[in-house]
C-alpha cells in the first residue's frame, strides 16, 4: 500500500512539474517599467526539479534549467547566441574559432559549428559533443553542444557520469567577485559537469572527481563509502549562510552582466604587454559596459553590433547599436532618421577625410585594434590561449599565434580589420579532399618521433626520483643547459661561463653552479674509489628502471664499460675504445648508443624553449610512418598525408622527397575584430593622409608571415594589400602621389588666387561700367 502511494506521488509530482514548465509565462515576459532588478531569494532546484535542502546529506548541485525556470524560459534562452552555435542555421558575421591546440603534434586546428571559411566543423574531424565539451568546456557557457539531447549522446561519452553542462546563468549574471572562472575550469576538467556551475558561483564547495569514477556510475548511485581517496564521487557542500530558513538561497543577480564576466571569455591583449601598460577600450574607459551595446532580451540573441547585422537577423532592431548607430544616428535598417549621440556618443567631425572612406572602410579600420605596423601585432585571446585561468599550473599558452590587424572586405564590401591565425595540422588527402587527422592518430603512428622532449625529461625525472642528488640533474647539449620544469617538460638556459661543449654531459645544477654528474676519475686505476663505483651503480640502476629503454644502461669511459649485472657493478675492458669523458649509454647487443640519440639531440636543441614544437626532420619521419604500408612493408609511392604549418603544406613527393607547397587549406583563418576601440586622437588618419597613403605604407604593405609550430624556412609571406585584394603597383603609385600632394595643393591655390582675382577684377569692371563709373569701350 505504501509503495503504491509512493508511485502515485511520484507520478503526480512529475505531472505537476511538467505542467509548471508548460505553463511558464516568461516567453513573452513584459517589462513592468521598473528599472530595478528583483531580489533573487529563491529555492534552488536540482536536475530532477526537486528543491535543494542544503543541510541534507549528499545534496545535488543546483540546476539552472529548473531553478531559473519559474521566471525565465530556459527553452527560449537555449536559442541565444551563446548557446546555439551547433544548432543555429544563421551564421552571421564570422567569429572567433575554437582552436584545438595540441603542442606535441603541432596541431592548431580552427573549429566552428558555423559554416565559416577555413574553419572545420568539429563533426568533420570526429569530435563528438563529449570531446568538444572536454576540450573547450573551460570557456563554454553551457547549453548547446555541452547539453546534448539524449538521442545525440554517443557511446564513447560519459555524460551519465559527468552530467550535462546546463546553461551557466550565473557565469554571466553573478556580479559577485566570488564567481570563479578558474573553479569552473577545474570542475570541467574533472568532468564534474553538473557540479561546475555550483562550484564556480561560490554557492557551494565541490569535492571529488567524476573523471575517476567508472563509466557505469550514475548520479543515483550516490557516494562510494569504500573509496574516500581516489575515485571520490563529486559532492556539494553548500554555503548555508546563503540560505534562509525556508531553504531559499540568495542569488546576487545582475540583470546587466559586468564586463569582467564577458571578459572571462572575450579578453584580447597584445602578447608580452605588461598589464599596467594595457589601455582598455575607450568605451569601457568612458564607463559603458559591454552590454550597453551588446544587448539582448530573454531570447539572449545578443546584438553583435556589426554593420549589416540586421540583414542576418531581420527580427532584431539591431542597427541602432553599430558604431554609426550611436555616433551618427544612422538607422540603416529602419525607416526615418535616428538621433546621434546615444549614451553620450560624441558626434565625429571627420574633418578632411574624403567621403569615399566612409563607403569603403568600416569604422573599426581607423578606430579599433592596434595601429598597423611593419609586421602584424601578436595578441592572445581568452578562448584560443586559455587566458583567465589561474592555479598552480600555468594555463595560458603562447600558441596559437594570433595576429592583427589585416584588412579584408566584408559582406558590405567595406574593409574591416581582422584577426588572423595560420592553421597547423596533420591531414589525409583523398581524391583532393583534405581531412585533418586527430592528434591521437598522429601520436599513435609517430611513436617515439614526437616524444623526444618527454624521453629526455624522463631520464632527468628518473635521476631525480632515484638518486639523492645534491641539486637538480641537468643535461648539457650544444652549450645549453636543459633541466626539468614544474610541468614535467624541459626548460633551457645558456651554459654560462664555459665554452660550448659538443658532447652530451649529464650534470648537477646547484645554486647556479654546474658540476658533472659523474666526476672525473681514472677507470684504469688499480684501486678505484668506492664512492665513485657506488654512484655509477646507482645511476645505472636508476636508468634501468626507465620503461621501454633502448637497451641496458652502461657507462663508457676511456677503454672501460661499466654495467650492472646481477646487482653488481661489472667492469669490462674494450681495448679499441677511447672515450675521453664518462658517457652514459644504452647497450643493445654489441651496439652502444648514447643515452640521448643524435636525432633527439638535434630535436631538443631546436624545440625546447621555443614555440616551435616540431622540426622538419620529425615531420618527414612522421609522414613516412603514416605512409608506411604494412602489407608491402614499404613507404607508399604516392602518399596521402601532409602536414600544414606556416601557410605551407609539407608532403613527401612522388620520389619520397620532403617538399613544401602552397595550398588552400594552409591559408590563414580570419575573423573581424571590433575592440579595443582607441580614442579619436589615436585613430588612423589623425595625422593626415600619410598615415595610410605613402610609399611604404604599413596599412597597405604590412608583412604577414606564416607562423606555426614547425621550425622551417619555408614560410608563406603575404603583403597586407593581398588581403584587401588591391594591386601593389597601383597602391605604391597612389602612395607616391601623396608625396607631391603639398606641391599640388600650392598649384591649386595659386591657380585659384589668379583666376579668382581676375574674375573679381572683371566683376568690378562690369559693375563699374553698368553703374557708369567706368566709361564703356567703343
Amino acid at each position: 500500500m505504501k509503495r503504491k502511494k509512493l508511485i502515485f506521488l511520484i507520478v503526480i509530482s512529475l505531472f505537476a512539474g511538467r505542467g509548471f514548465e508548460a505553463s511558464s509565462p516568461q516567453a513573452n515576459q513584459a517589462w513592468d517599467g521598473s528599472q530595478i532588478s528583483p531580489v533573487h531569494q529563491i529555492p534552488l532546484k536540482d536536475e530532477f526539479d526537486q528543491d535543494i535542502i542544503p543541510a541534507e546529506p549528499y545534496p545535488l548541485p543546483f540546476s539552472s534549467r529548473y531553478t531559473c525556470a519559474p521566471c525565465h524560459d530556459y527553452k527560449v534562452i537555449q536559442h541565444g547566441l551563446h548557446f546555439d552555435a551547433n544548432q543555429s542555421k544563421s551564421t552571421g558575421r564570422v567569429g572567433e574559432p575554437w582552436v584545438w591546440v595540441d603542442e606535441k603534434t603541432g596541431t592548431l586546428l580552427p573549429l566552428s559549428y558555423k559554416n565559416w571559411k577555413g574553419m572545420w566543423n568539429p563533426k568533420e574531424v570526429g569530435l563528438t559533443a563529449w570531446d568538444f565539451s572536454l576540450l573547450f568546456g573551460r570557456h563554454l557557457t553551457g547549453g548547446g553542444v555541452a547539453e546534448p539531447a539524449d538521442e545525440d549522446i554517443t557511446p564513447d561519452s560519459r555524460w551519465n557520469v559527468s552530467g550535462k553542462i546546463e546553461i551557466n546563468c550565473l557565469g554571466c549574471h553573478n556580479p559577485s567577485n566570488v564567481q570563479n572562472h578558474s573553479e569552473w575550469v577545474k570542475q570541467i576538467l574533472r568532468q564534474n559537469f553538473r557540479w561546475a556551475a555550483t562550484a564556480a558561483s561560490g554557492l557551494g564547495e565541490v569535492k571529488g572527481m567524476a573523471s575517476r569514477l567508472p563509466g557505469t556510475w550514475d548520479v543515483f548511485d550516490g557516494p562510494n563509502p569504500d573509496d574516500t581517496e581516489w575515485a571520490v564521487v563529486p559532492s556539494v557542500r553548500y554555503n548555508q549562510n546563503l540560505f534562509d530558513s525556508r531553504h531559499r538561497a540568495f542569488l546576487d543577480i545582475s540583470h546587466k552582466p559586468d564586463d569582467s564576466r564577458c571578459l572571462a571569455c572575450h579578453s584580447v591583449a597584445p602578447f608580452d604587454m605588461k598589464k599596467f601598460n594595457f589601455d582598455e577600450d575607450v568605451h569601457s574607459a568612458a564607463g559603458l559596459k559591454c552590454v550597453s551595446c551588446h544587448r539582448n532580451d530573454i531570447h539572449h540573441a545578443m546584438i553583435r553590433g556589426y554593420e549589416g547585422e540586421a540583414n542576418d537577423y531581420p527580427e532584431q532592431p539591431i542597427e541602432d547599436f553599430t558604431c554609426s548607430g550611436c555616433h551618427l544616428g544612422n538607422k540603416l535598417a529602419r525607416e526615418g532618421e535616428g538621433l546621434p549621440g546615444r549614451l553620450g556618443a560624441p558626434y565625429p567631425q571627420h574633418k578632411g577625410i574624403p567621403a569615399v572612406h566612409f563607403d569603403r572602410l568600416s569604422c573599426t579600420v581607423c578606430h579599433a585594434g592596434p595601429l598597423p605596423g611593419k609586421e602584424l601585432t601578436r595578441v592572445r585571446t581568452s578562448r584560443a590561449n586559455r587566458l583567465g585561468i589561474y592555479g598552480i599550473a600555468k594555463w595560458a599558452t603562447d600558441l596559437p599565434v594570433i595576429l592583427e590587424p589585416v584588412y579584408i572586405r566584408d559582406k558590405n564590401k567595406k574593409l574591416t580589420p581582422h584577426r588572423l591565425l595560420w592553421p597547423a595540422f596533420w591531414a589525409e588527402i583523398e581524391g583532393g579532399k583534405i581531412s585533418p587527422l586527430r592528434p591521437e592518430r598522429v601520436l599513435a603512428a609517430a611513436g617515439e618521433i614526437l616524444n623526444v622532449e618527454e624521453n629526455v625529461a624522463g631520464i632527468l625525472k628518473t635521476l631525480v626520483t632515484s638518486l639523492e642528488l645534491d641539486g637538480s640533474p641537468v643535461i648539457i647539449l650544444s652549450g645549453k643547459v636543459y633541466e626539468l620544469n614544474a610541468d614535467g617538460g624541459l626548460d633551457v638556459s645558456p651554459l654560462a661561463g664555459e665554452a660550448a661543449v659538443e658532447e652530451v654531459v649529464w650534470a648537477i645544477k646547484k645554486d647556479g653552479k654546474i658540476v658533472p654528474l659523474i666526476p672525473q676519475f681514472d677507470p684504469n686505476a688499480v684501486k678505484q674509489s668506492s664512492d665513485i663505483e657506488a654512484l655509477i651503480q646507482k645511476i645505472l640502476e636508476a636508468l634501468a628502471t626507465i620503461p621501454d629503454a633502448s637497451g641496458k644502461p652502461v657507462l663508457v669511459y676511456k677503454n672501460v664499460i661499466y654495467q650492472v649485472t646481477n646487482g653488481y657493478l661489472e667492469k669490462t675492458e674494450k681495448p679499441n675504445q677511447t672515450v675521453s669523458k664518462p658517457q652514459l649509454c644504452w647497450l643493445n647487443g654489441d651496439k652502444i648508443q648514447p643515452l640521448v640519440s643524435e636525432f633527439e639531440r638535434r630535436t631538443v636543441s631546436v624545440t625546447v624553449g621555443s614555440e616551435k614544437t616540431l622540426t622538419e626532420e620529425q615531420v618527414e619521419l612522421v609522414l613516412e610512418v603514416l605512409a608506411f604500408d604494412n602489407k608491402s612493408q614499404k613507404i607508399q609511392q604516392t602518399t596521402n598525408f601532409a602536414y600544414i604549418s606556416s601557410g605551407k603544406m609539407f608532403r613527401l613527393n612522388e620520389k619520397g622527397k620532403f617538399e613544401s607547397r602552397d595550398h588552400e587549406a594552409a591559408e590563414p583563418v580570419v575573423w573581424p575584430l571590433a575592440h579595443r576601440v582607441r580614442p579619436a586622437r589615436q585613430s588612423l588618419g589623425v595625422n593626415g593622409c600619410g598615415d595610410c597613403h605613402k610609399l611604404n605604407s604599413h596599412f597597405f604593405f604590412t608583412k604577414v608571415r606564416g607562423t606555426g609550430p614547425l621550425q622551417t624556412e619555408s614560410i608563406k609571406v603575404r603583403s597586407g594589400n593581398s588581403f584587401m585584394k588591391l594591386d601593389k603597383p597601383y597602391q605604391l603609385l597612389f602612395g607616391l602621389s601623396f608625396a607631391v600632394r603639398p606641391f599640388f595643393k600650392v598649384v591649386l591655390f595659386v591657380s585659384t588666387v589668379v583666376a579668382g582675382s581676375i574674375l573679381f577684377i572683371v566683376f568690378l569692371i562690369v559693375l563699374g561700367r553698368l553703374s557708369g563709373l567706368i566709361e564703356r569701350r567703343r
Partner: protein
Amino acid sequence: MFFSLIAIVSLIGLILGLTFLRFRAEIAKKEKYFSWLGRGFARIFKPSGLKQLRALYENWVLLYYLGWTKWVFFCLVVSFCYLAASGFAFALLSSRGMYGVFLLLHVSAGGLFALSLSAALVLRAKDYVLENISKSDVQKIFFWIFVISGLLLILTALSSMLSLFTLSTQVVLSEVHRSSALFALLSAVVFIDIAVVPRGK
C-alpha cells in the same frame, strides 16, 4: 541617381537643341533632322572631318592664341576633355565612384586644368569683358560661366584636400564639384558652338 539623370538629360538636350537650331537655319525642310545629324556625326570620322578640324585649329586657335600660348589652350582643352570624360563616365556608369589609374589621371589632369585655366584667363580675359548684356555677348557670358564653374571645380578639389571641413561639408563640396563640372561642360559646349562652328545663313 538624380544627378545622373539631370546630367544626361541636360547634355543630350543641349546638343540636340543646338544641332536642331542649326538644322532649322541651314537645311531644306525636306530632309529629316536625325538623318542629317547622323551624317554629320559620321562625317567627323572621315578624312574631310579631320581636315575641317585642322582648318578650325588654324582659323581659330592660332588666331587667338599666338606663339607659345597655343599650348595653354591645348592643355586646357586636353585636361578638360579628360576630366569631363572620366568624371562623367564614372558618375554615370559606376556606382563605386572613380578609382584606380583613372582617379590618379583625373587628379593630375585637374592640376593641369587649374594652371591652364588661370593662364588662359590672364591671356584672354580682357577680350571677354562684358560691355553690355546683348545678343552678341552670349559667347562672353558662357565664357564666364565656364570660368566660374572651373574656379568652383578647383576650389572644391582644393578644399577636400584640406583638413578644414567636416564630412557633411565635404559631401556638399562633392556635390558642388559635380554640379560645377556639369555647368562647365554645358557652357563649354555652347561656347564652342558659338565660337568655332561656322555660322550658316
